[in-house]
C-alpha cells in the first residue's frame, strides 16, 4: 500500500485561508503523492473542513496566501467545476439536498462532464448498479432525489457512490465517518479501500481515529489552530486516540466537545 510512484498528486504550500475576514488556516503545507492515503486529524475548529472546502474552491473561503498544485496545475486559478474535471473530489460532511433531481440523472451528467464522449445510458446503468452493489445499496436508491430525505448514513454512502462512479485522482473525505453506525462505517471504508490503488490519492479528514481502523493511512497529520503541527505514520493516530489533542495546547482541547 505504501508503494507509490513517488509522483506528488496534491501539493499545498503555506496555505492561508480566511472566512469572513477571520483567518482559519495559517500556513498549511502538505503533500499527497498519488496512491497514498493521508489522514488529517484535529479537534473541532482546527480548520479541517476549511481546508477541504478551500481545496475545492468554495466561494466563501478566501485564499489570502499560499499555493495549491494538483497534477502540476495551479488549482487556485481554477473554478470549482474545473478542479473537479481535473480529477479532484470532495466527499461532503453535509451534502446539499437537490430536490427533484434523481441520483442517477445527476451522476450521469457529472460523469459525462469529465468524459470526452458521452457514456451510453445502458453502459451507465451497468456501471451504477455495479458500484451500488459494492456499497450494498438498494437499486431503488438511484431514482431517489439527490440527498433529499436521506438519513445521515445514506448521505455518506451516496458520497462514496459518487466517488466510486466518478473515479477521481484525489478524494478528500470530509468527516465521512460522522453520523455513521459501525456497519455503515465498514461498508463505506470497504468502498474506499477498493478504490485505493496506484492512482487515487486520498485525504481522510476526521476527528476520531475510528475510521482509520478501517482505512489504514500511509501518513497522519495533525492540524491545530490552522497549522499542521505534527506528521507521522499510522501510529500517530493511535497515540491521538489514547492521549487526545491536549498535548498540543489547552485551547485546542477545550474545543474538543
Amino acid at each position, binding site marked *: 500500500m505504501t508503494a507509490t510512484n513517488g509522483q506528488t498528486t496534491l501539493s499545498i504550500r503555506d496555505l492561508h485561508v480566511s472566512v469572513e475576514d477571520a483567518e482559519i488556516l495559517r500556513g498549511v503545507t502538505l503533500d499527497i503523492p498519488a496512491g497514498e492515503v493521508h489522514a488529517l486529524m484535529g479537534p473541532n475548529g482546527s480548520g479541517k473542513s476549511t481546508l477541504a472546502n478551500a481545496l475545492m474552491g468554495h466561494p466563501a473561503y478566501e485564499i489570502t496566501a499560499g499555493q495549491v498544485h494538483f497534477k502540476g496545475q495551479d488549482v487556485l486559478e481554477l473554478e470549482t467545476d474545473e478542479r473537479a474535471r481535473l480529477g479532484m473530489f470532495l466527499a461532503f460532511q453535509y451534502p*446539499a439536498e*437537490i430536490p*427533484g*433531481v434523481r441520483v442517477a440523472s445527476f451522476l450521469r451528467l457529472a460523469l459525462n462532464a469529465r468524459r470526452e464522449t458521452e457514456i451510453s445510458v445502458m453502459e451507465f446503468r451497468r456501471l451504477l448498479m455495479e458500484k451500488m452493489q459494492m456499497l450494498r445499496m438498494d437499486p431503488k436508491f438511484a431514482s431517489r432525489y*439527490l440527498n433529499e430525505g436521506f438519513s445521515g448514513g445514506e448521505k455518506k454512502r451516496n458520497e462514496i457512490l459518487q466517488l466510486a462512479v*466518478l473515479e477521481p485522482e484525489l478524494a478528500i473525505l470530509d468527516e465521512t465517518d460522522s453520523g455513521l453506525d459501525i456497519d455503515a462505517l465498514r461498508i463505506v471504508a470497504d468502498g474506499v479501500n477498493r478504490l485505493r490503488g496506484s492512482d487515487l490519492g486520498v485525504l481522510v479528514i476526521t476527528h476520531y481515529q475510528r475510521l482509520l481502523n478501517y482505512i489504514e493511512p500511509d501518513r497522519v497529520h495533525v492540524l491545530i489552530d490552522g497549522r499542521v503541527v505534527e506528521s507521522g505514520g499510522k501510529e500517530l493516530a493511535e497515540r491521538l486516540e489514547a492521549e487526545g489533542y491536549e498535548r498540543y495546547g489547552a485551547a485546542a482541547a477545550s474545543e474538543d466537545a
Partner: protein
Amino acid sequence: MAVKDIDQVGLDTYKFGFHDDIQPVYTSPKGLSEDIVREISRQKDEPAWMLDFRLEALRQFERKAMPTWGADLSRIDFDDIHYYIRPQDRQARSWDDVPEDIKSTFDKLGIPEAERKFLAGVGAQYDSEVVYHSIRDDLEEQGVIFLDMDSGLREHEDIVRDYFGTVIPNGDNKFAALNSAVWSGGSFVYVPEGVRVEIPLQAYFRINAENMGQFERTLIIVEPGAYVHYVEGCTAPVYATDSLHSAVVEIIVKEGGRCRYTTIQNWSTDVFNLVTKRAVAYRDATMEWVDGNLGSKVTMKYPAVYLMEPGAHGEVLSIAFAGEDQHQDAGAKMVHAAPDTSSLITSKSISRKGGRTAYRGYVQVLPEAERCRSNVECDALLIDDRSRSDTYPYMDIEESDVAIQHEATVSKVSDQQLFYLMSRGLTQEQAMAMVVSGFIEPIVKELPMEYAVEMNRLIELQMEGSIG
C-alpha cells in the same frame, strides 16, 4: 437526462412543410367596431345566433373596465390591433422578420426548418397530413370529433350551439368578451360516452391552419365515462407580430369522465397573454389543467374548475418562468359547488433577471358543499436578488365541514447547492439548470415525454447567460 434519445423520435417523426406563395385574403383594418365583428362573421358564413353572440360580446367588452388588479395592462392599445387576419395572410410575413433570439432558440432546440417557419407564423403545415389522417381515422371510428373551431361550428352546429359560451359567458370578463366578439380558430373536441382517447390530441397535428390565432376559442366536451388528453401549443417559442393574445377555453366533463388539458405557452416576449380557461366537472368527473408559462411579456391566466356535483375532482399544475421584463401572473380557481368534491393546486414559479411571477389563487366553497377537500401548494424559486415572486391566495369558505390546506414557500438557489453540483464537474450554468429542473420536476413528469424533454432543454437554454 435519460430521455434525450427519445427526443429525436418525437421531433423527427413529423415532417412539416410550408407554403410561402399564398396571397393575403382578408385583413381587417386596425381597431374594433361592430362593422368588423359583422365582417368576421360574414366571412366565416356563420349562423345568425353566432353573430348575435359576437355582437352582444362586443357590447360587453365596451362596457367592461380593464382589470386593475394583477399585471400592468396599460400598454395595450385596442385600436392598434388587427382583430381578424385570415390564416393564409400569415404566410405573407417574412422569415427575415423573425427575431434573432427566436431563430437561435429554434437552432438550439434542433427544430427542423419547416417546423420553425410554422412556429414562427411564416409557414403552414401540410406534409403532416399522413400522420394526421391516420390519427383522425382512428378517432373517427370511435366517434371522436377533433376539428378547428370554425369547422366544428360548420359541421356540428347542433353540439356547438348547446355548449358554446355556457361555461364562460360572453360577458365573463373584458378579455373573454373580446375573444367572444372576434374569436377565430381554436379547437373543437367531442368525446362520446365511454370512449377513452389513448393518444394525446395535439392542436399541433390538426391540419386546418387556424390554430395559432390570437383569439382562438376552444371547446371540449367529454361525455360520461370518457377520457381525453388535449395538448395545446408547444415548448418552442411562438412568434407573434401582434401584441395581444386572448384565448378562451371551455371544457365540460360529464359524469365519471376525465379530461386533462396541457398547455406550454412560449409566446415571444412582447405579447400580452390574457387567457380565460374554465371547466365544469360533474359527478365523479376529473378535470386537470397542466399549465406552463414561459414566454410572453405579461401573462394573466387562472385555469378554473367548477366542481358541480359530488365526487368531482379538479387539479391545476402550473409552472411559470419569468425572465427579464416578464411578468407571469398565473394561478388557479376552484369552486366547490357540491359536497364531497376535491381540488389540488400545485404551482411552481421561477424568477430570474428581474422577472416577476405571482401565484394568484381562488378557492371557493359554497354553502352546504360539505366534506370538501382542497390542497394548495405554491413554491417560488428566485434565481437572483433582483427577481420577485408574490403569492395571493384567496379563500372564500362558506361551509364549516371542509378540509382546506394552503402551503407556500419561497426559496433561492443556494450557494451550497451550486458548490455541491460544481464540485462534481458541472458548470455553474449546468448546476443552476439542474436545480431549476429539479424544482419543476413534479410538474414536468406529468407532461407527455417529448414535451418534458423540450421543457428541460428550454430551461437549460433559459439559464444560459443567467449567471453573474
